[in-house]
Structure formats: structure tokens, C-alpha cells
């Protein structure tokens, strides 16, 4: 399309009387027009190319299942631990997405990937690093969702350990997880207070914490409960009933999926210590040389990679103790009820017992017509490794 030439020609006759500003404006306008035309050429060519390519491809390339159908994880590969569930369109597209095939049980809450854990992101350690001893490896990996490797494996002489929460979204220090705060609030508003009228501030607080906990990886039911809480009238019986429901549901969700993890605080800074400081080059060298290195050289390389490594990692009883000498759970925002549960000796003593090489028989519920539950074996003898997990 040409510019309307007739009026422009009539202006040209007055050209000698025009000042510099006029000619600059005219030149700028001309430039804009040319750039605009050039952009339009590119746009028309691009869109035309896309259109023609689509037509040709639709006729000659055999179709494939679209991502909404094919993009589902079919195997429980380690890579799944580095991604988050919404990354798979096939899972996000359906009402009740199925688990990877080899897994029968529902898998709605995916393990939360820790993109800031230097130990696993470096390529040295797997996201589930404990794999050696059958007796305790799964139990130890259980902690990987809420505790950074460094808490147990990095040197620190302080007591209790200087710990901070860091968010799995940004890797920065943050406040305690919403789920713990919510549990704390609900614990304080116990059964004796259920009869009270919950006003707007309480409604706001509980609604926000429920929504945040849902967004941070707790069960989807919490997010739905948040919607309900926000929808009812303050002071109503419905709100009270919802809070009663929350008191029942929330404790079940305290399973370490908080959207945040505990880590050592970096000395002199308000940052989590997420890897051995200053070891990037050593890590690179290790990964490069380790496959062909002699055992001595490998030890040398490993020592360079782990300057802060604890000689002996912390054991279960170091943290699961009412004295809170290693982890000050209360200071870290754990509500009293949760602290009591974490410090109950039963489970970790059981695990240490198992770690010593002694089997532990579950207290099975007997049924009519079935044999009585197996009896617990005799107490364990001295464990080979002193009970260290």
C-alpha cells in the first residue's frame, strides 16, 4: 500500500519554507512507517508459514496422542523426584490422575522437589540418598522431605543447632510452615473453646493458613476447606463446625510435606546453608575424575568436596528427645502437640532397635479364625554399630 500521494505532493511544493523540525518529524514518520511495514511483512510471513505448515503436517504426518493423554509419568524414575506434579499436563488434565503404572496406590501428593539442595542438585547424591541399609534407609529418606541433609551431616558445634526454615520455592529463609502454624492455632483453640464464636479475624487467619498449607503441598482437602471457611459467615455455627473439621483433618497432614525444610543457618548470615561452601570446583573435579580415580585419589577428592562433613552423622535420638538439645523444635515453630509427638521415644527407639539388626514385629490385629499375632522376639543384643542409623 502506497501512501496517499496526491495530498503529499501538494505539500511538497511548500517544502522550502519548512523548518528542520518538520523534516525531522517527516523522517521519523517515514521510519516508523517502514518499520511498521517490515514488522507486518514478518508477521504475515510467519502466520502464513504456520498455516501452511499446519495444513501439510495435518495431511502427511501420522498423528500422535496429545500431551493431555500421553504426558503422564509411566515409571517411577528418579527424575520424578526433580519435578513437580503440575509439570505433567496429562495429570493436570484429569479429575483423578492415575499413578505411574508400577505403583498401585494413589499418588496425589508428589514428593516436593528440592531445587536448592546442593548435595542432590550437584549430581553427587540422589534426592533419596540413603540406600545402603535395608533396615533404616526408607526411614531416613523419610526425613528428606522436611530436613536438609546438612542438619545431620554437616559439622556444627552449637547446641541446639542454629536452624532455619527455607522455602522450596525460592530457597530463602522463611517463617515456619503454614501447616505448623495452623496446627498451633487449632491446638490452642481446643475442644473446650469450640463453643466460642469465631469472628472475622479468626476466620481470616484460619482461611489464610489453610489455603497456604494447601498451596505448600499439604493435602488438597485443606485448600477446599479454606474455600469453605472463607465462604461462611463469621460467628456462625457453620464456621465453628468447619474449625472442628479442621482440628480433625490437619493433624493427619503433618507428614513432612510443608513446602519448606529445616537447614543449618549459614554462619554470619540469614541464609540457609544448603551445600558445603566453596566446593563448586571440587565437585566438578570429583564428577570428572571419580569414575577413573584410584581409591586414594577418590578419598582425596571426596575430602575436598565435603569440608564440613560430620564425622558421624546425627542419630535419631539426638533430635527426637524432649531435651531439645540438638533441634529446638519449639523455637522453630513446632506446636507443643507436635513436639510431644516428635519426642515420643517409641518410634525412633524401635528404628534403632531394627537398625541393630533385630526384626520388629508389627502388632497385628487378630481376626476371627486367624492365628494370633506374632510375638515380639527377645530384646536385642548389643547392636553392631551402636544403634546409629
Amino acid at each position, binding site marked *: 500500500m502506497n501512501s496517499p500521494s*496526491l495530498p503529499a505532493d501538494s505539500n511538497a511544493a511548500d517544502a522550502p519554507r519548512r523548518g528542520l523540525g518538520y523534516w525531522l518529524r517527516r523522517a521519523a514518520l517515514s521510519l516508523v512507517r517502514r518499520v511498521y*511495514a517490515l514488522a507486518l511483512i514478518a508477521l504475515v510471513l510467519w502466520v502464513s508459514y504456520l498455516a501452511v505448515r499446519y495444513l501439510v503436517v495435518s495431511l502427511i504426518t501420522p498423528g500422535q496422542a496429545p500431551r493431555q493423554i500421553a504426558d503422564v509419568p509411566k515409571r517411577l524414575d528418579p527424575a520424578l523426584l526433580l519435578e513437580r506434579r503440575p509439570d505433567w499436563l496429562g495429570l493436570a488434565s484429569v479429575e483423578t490422575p492415575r499413578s505411574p503404572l508400577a505403583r498401585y496406590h*494413589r499418588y496425589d501428593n508428589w514428593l516436593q522437589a528440592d531445587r536448592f539442595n546442593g548435595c542432590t542438585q550437584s549430581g553427587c547424591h540422589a534426592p533419596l540418598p540413603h540406600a545402603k541399609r535395608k533396615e533404616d534407609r526408607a526411614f531416613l529418606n523419610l526425613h528428606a*522431605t522436611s530436613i536438609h541433609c546438612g542438619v545431620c551431616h554437616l559439622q556444627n558445634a552449637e547446641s541446639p543447632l542454629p536452624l532455619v526454615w527455607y522455602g522450596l520455592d525460592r530457597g530463602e529463609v522463611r517463617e515456619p510452615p503454614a501447616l505448623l502454624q495452623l496446627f498451633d492455632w487449632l491446638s490452642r483453640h481446643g475442644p473446650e473453646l469450640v463453643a466460642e464464636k469465631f469472628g472475622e479475624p479468626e476466620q481470616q487467619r484460619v482461611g489464610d493458613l489453610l489455603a497456604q498449607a494447601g498451596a505448600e503441598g499439604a493435602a488438597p482437602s485443606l485448600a477446599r476447606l479454606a474455600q469453605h471457611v472463607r465462604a461462611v459467615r463469621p460467628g456462625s455455627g457453620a464456621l465453628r463446625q468447619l474449625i472442628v473439621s479442621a482440628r480433625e483433618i490437619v493433624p493427619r497432614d503433618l507428614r513432612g510435606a510443608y513446602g519448606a525444610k529445616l537447614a543449618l543457618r549459614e554462619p554470619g548470615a540469614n541464609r540457609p546453608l544448603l551445600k558445603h561452601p566453596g566446593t563448586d570446583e571440587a565437585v566438578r573435579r570429583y564428577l570428572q575424575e571419580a569414575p577413573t580415580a584410584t581409591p586414594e585419589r577418590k578419598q582425596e577428592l571426596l575430602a575436598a568436596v565435603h569440608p564440613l562433613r560430620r564425622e558421624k552423622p546425627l542419630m535419631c535420638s539426638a533430635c527426637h528427645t524432649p531435651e531439645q538439645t540438638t533441634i529446638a523444635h519449639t523455637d522453630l515453630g513446632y506446636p507443643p502437640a507436635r513436639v510431644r509427638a516428635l519426642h515420643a521415644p517409641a518410634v525412633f527407639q524401635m528404628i534403632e532397635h531394627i537398625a541393630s539388626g533385630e526384626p520388629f514385629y508389627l*502388632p497385628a490385629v487378630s*481376626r476371627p479364625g486367624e492365628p494370633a499375632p506374632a510375638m515380639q522376639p527377645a*530384646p536385642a543384643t548389643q547392636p553392631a554399630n551402636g544403634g546409629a542409623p
Partner: protein
Amino acid sequence: MLVNHRTHSRARGFGFCAATLAFLVALASPGGAHAEDRDNCLYCHQFPGLSRLDPDSARVRLFYVDPSYVHNSHGPHARLACTDCHERDTVSVVPHKPVTPVDCTRTCHLATPNAPPRRFSHENAARMLEHGAHTRAVLEGLEFTGGPLLNAGQSLCLYCHDEPVFRNPAKVLHAIEDIEGRTFDRCDVCHLTQVPLDTTYYLRHVATRFAPARSTLELAQVCAVCHSDPKVLAAHDLPNSIASYVRSFHGKAALLGDETTANCLSCHVAAGDNVHRMLGPEDPASAVHVSHVPNGCRTIACHPGADRSIAATAVHLDLPTARGTIDFAVALLFIVLTVISFGPSALIVLLELAHLVVGRQHHGNQHLYALAQQVMAHPDGPRRLHRFAPRARLQHWILTLLFTLLCLTGFPLKFPDQLWSRALIDAFGGIGVARVLHHWAGIALVAGFLVHLLDILVAVRRRARELHEKGDRPMTYFRAFAALPFFVTGKDLRRAGQLIAYLVGLRRDRPTFARFSITEKFEYFGVLWGTSLLGLTGLMLWGEQITSHFLTGRAFNLATIVHTYEAFLAVIHVGILHIYNVVLNPAVFPLSLATLSGHTPLTKLVEENGEFVVQTARELGVSTQESILE
């Protein structure tokens, strides 16, 4: 040393007994265990991180069991104890012994509130499988691209099944949604005390059975495990049925969230039979055997009023693998048509833009411009130089609105796997609403088209009468029709050649056209042709049950191809070329006012429709030079 050892051992023994006791207490506490988890396995298995990497298989061994499934009775298996499936001997001790793979055909115990546990087994399903296409031998022989999907010894049922989940009953039985939770209140009047029954559980269980166990898309995901895996397809000489399904109307609707459209089982499982006895199409007993397909299509839920001929529709038509068929030929024809009709128009636009880039200016015809000004000075001049009458402009804007609505509601079906498609359909309120809007916008478009044809007939009749009154008798109607301004004449074609020559620099002056330029005439014919085709095929597809009584089912495939490719042609023409001409063209940006007022700017009129100016001048008696256009 011995004493020390014994003392230590005794101390440990006491500690361990205390720990065991505490463990049992903890299991009985509200936060630790729940009545549904009869074996207390969730005490450990509720933690998402309970897992490890298996270095041998390079797979994650995930021991997590979602406790909400059990606590909230998300499915029928929530009533099972873990040891109903897992061998008690292997899992009752920690660390567990090497577990025996679960055998889905073993007998389990269904717990009911007011009755002793009942024995149950899926053995029946396993037996049925042996009578279908998916026998144990077939499943055991599956080899997948990238290696096995199941662990050694795992139940083959896992290819299709995972932990069964009740669907949201409110989505199945809308009455439940309407009365919210009150259904349970009414049931509980009796079932809470006198006849104890978990009404919530049973309602969800029964409601779920009113709909397929999985949503349409989930079902496609299940079937796609094998039926879109290249290695499986090659080994069993199968087509990629999932890919062709999503190219069908059913599959596209499924991708856009339609739960009422046909899923894999709708066609492949006969009424009265079940999925475990699914057979291949060559088996006379198969639901998709050629003799049974017509009845499958004509069920009450699908196309009840259709003729048997509807079964001739190729549901799994995938054009790239259908070479040599009429469907492929029609699609190819439309693609060629698209390229040869769109190509020249696009070339003209690109060359005009190139002129702008290089700064080539057309020095317009000064005499013609002066003549146009004289015509405009004539009392009747401005009206006569109107290129678009008010009625035409109104029709244009109605067409614009309907075309836009049709594109917005129709194009998601063409690209259903794109995220924007689903978002767009959801914005309309779902596929059902979008479909209704598309149908009625199409009807309105066809109605508008008929009104326009009526306008043309009226104009022809009026012109014929004028000729008749002038005594210009022979073939008045034919000549009146031939004189309609939208016909492409030999002169138009000549001018088009001159325009190309001008745009590529082989000619100095830009040719000018009559009332409508050649590109406008092509666009107009595109609308006539497109509306006819789209309207006809759209009605065929909408009224498929009626159409099937007159045409073979194959016509639906052809109608779909014609409808979709013609719509695509229309969209790229309008979206790229027409939008350029009336919006993006610098001469009219941001919008050609001719579409609102009917007036074309004088300079543009002189440049593009000079013949129209001259003709109008002659009709008004304004003096013109014979050679003004030369």
C-alpha cells in the same frame, strides 16, 4: 565384660519393651491410627518420603500410601486391610521380608459395619480376560518403548488399574449437588442407629457406578499406555488408535472436557458385556465387529434416531494414514485450494508492504483526483461515491460478529490439544454451551446469507425492470444478473495482472479498478462460497441422525473435512489478509471507515477505484477526458 554386656542387654531389653508399649499406645491415639487402617500400616506408610532409590532397577521404590484414601473412604479398597492384599507374613515384620507381589485374584475380606467380613475376589475378572483380546499371554508379552513399565512379578492388572477411586457423586447425580449434604441427613435418620450403615460410603459407591469409573480423558490415558506405544503397536500390527480417536469429534470433545462424548469403552464394550471381555474388530462377537457397530452407534445415549448407515463413518480416521481414500483426496484438494487462493492474495499484501519499506510512492493521477473532487462537489456526488450501502454495512457487521463467534466456539475443536482451546471453551461455560452457541451462530449466519441472496434477487429484478422499461428487452434478467458489480470480468483479470506487474516493478503506474477491486471481489466470493459450504456441512453434522437416513456415514467424514478445512481457509483469509486490508493497512489504520460510513477516503478511492469515479462522473454528467485512466 560379660556382666556389662548382660546388664546392657537387659537395659536395652527393658527399653525396647517400653518402646513397644509406647508404640502400641501411639497407634491407638487419634493422631496415630484410625479404625479403618486395621493393620496400622499407615503409622509409617503415611509419610510421603518413605522411599528409596533401587540402584538395580534405577527406579524409586515409594512406600507411601495416601492416608486420606483410607480415612475418607475415597474408594472401595479403603475398606480393605493392607494384609488383605499383601502377604501378612512378609509385612508384619520390620524391616519387611522381600514382599510377594500382590495377586489381585486372591481372596480378601470386605468389612461391613453390621455384618461379619465377606470374602471377595477378582478372580472372575481374570477368567473373563481369557475370553477377550487382553489375555494373560498377550499382557505378559507386552514390550514397551523404553523398557518394562511394571516391576517383575507385579500384577498385570496394573496396566489398566490403580487404586480405584469413587468419582464425585455430585458430578454424576446432579440432584445430590442440589440438596448438598442433606441426602445423608435423611438417610441417617434410620441408618445411624437402628440399621447402622455408612450411608456416605454407599451413596458414593453407587453414584460412581452411574458413570464410567474413569473420565473420558482418563480412560484414553489408560488405553494409550499400550495403544499409543510405538513398540507395542509395531509388535501387534496395530494403528495408533489414540491418535485417531483424538482426531475424531468424540476425541476432540473429550479433550475439551466433554464427559458425555463417546469414550473408548462406549464403542468397544457391548451393552450387557464388560471391559474384561473386549474383543478385536475381526471377532464376530466383538462390539466393534462390522455387524454390531450400527447398533452400538444407535444406542439411546448416542445417536438413537440414526440410520444403520451412520456406522459407515470412519471414527478412527487419521488422514495421513488414509492415503488413497476419498477423504484424503478431499483434504488434499482443500489444501491445494487454500494455497492457490491464499497465496496470490498474500503475495499482493506482501508486495504492497515491501513498497512501503523501500519507500516507493505512487504518484497518483492528478486528473482523476480533480475529477473525483468535481464529482464530490456535485449535489448527488457524495451519495453516488458511496461504495457500501447502509444495508450492506449492517450485514457486514453482523457477519463480523457471527464469524468471530463461530471462530471462537469452533476453532477449539480444530486444535483441541492446545491449552488455549480448553481455556476458551471453559470461558464459554463448557463444551455444551460452546456447541449451542456455535450451532445457533451458524444458523444466524445462514439466515443472513439467505437475506443477502434475497437482496441480490431484488436488485436483479429492479435492474431487469429498468432494462425492460427502456425497451432493452432480450434476456433482461440474465443481463441484469451479469451486471452485478461483484462478478470478476476480463478487465478485472487484466488489471490484476497489471497490479502484479506494478508491484514487482515492471510497470510504472498502479492500475485502478471499478467499484470493487479484484481482491475485494475474491473476498466476497470467498464469503459466498464459504458460507454455503460451511452452512451445508454444518447442518449435515448437526443433524447427523436425519442426515444418516439420506447419506452414507462416510459423508460425515467428508463433511467434517470440508467444514474444518474451509473454516481454516476462511480464518487465514480473514485473519491475515482481510484484517490487513481493513485494519492494519497504514492507509486505513486503525480501521477503514468505509466499514462504518460507506465512504472511502478520496485519495484511496482515486488510487484503487478510479474506474468507479469515472463511471460516476459520466452518470452525473461531469465532463471527463476519454483518456483519463490511460
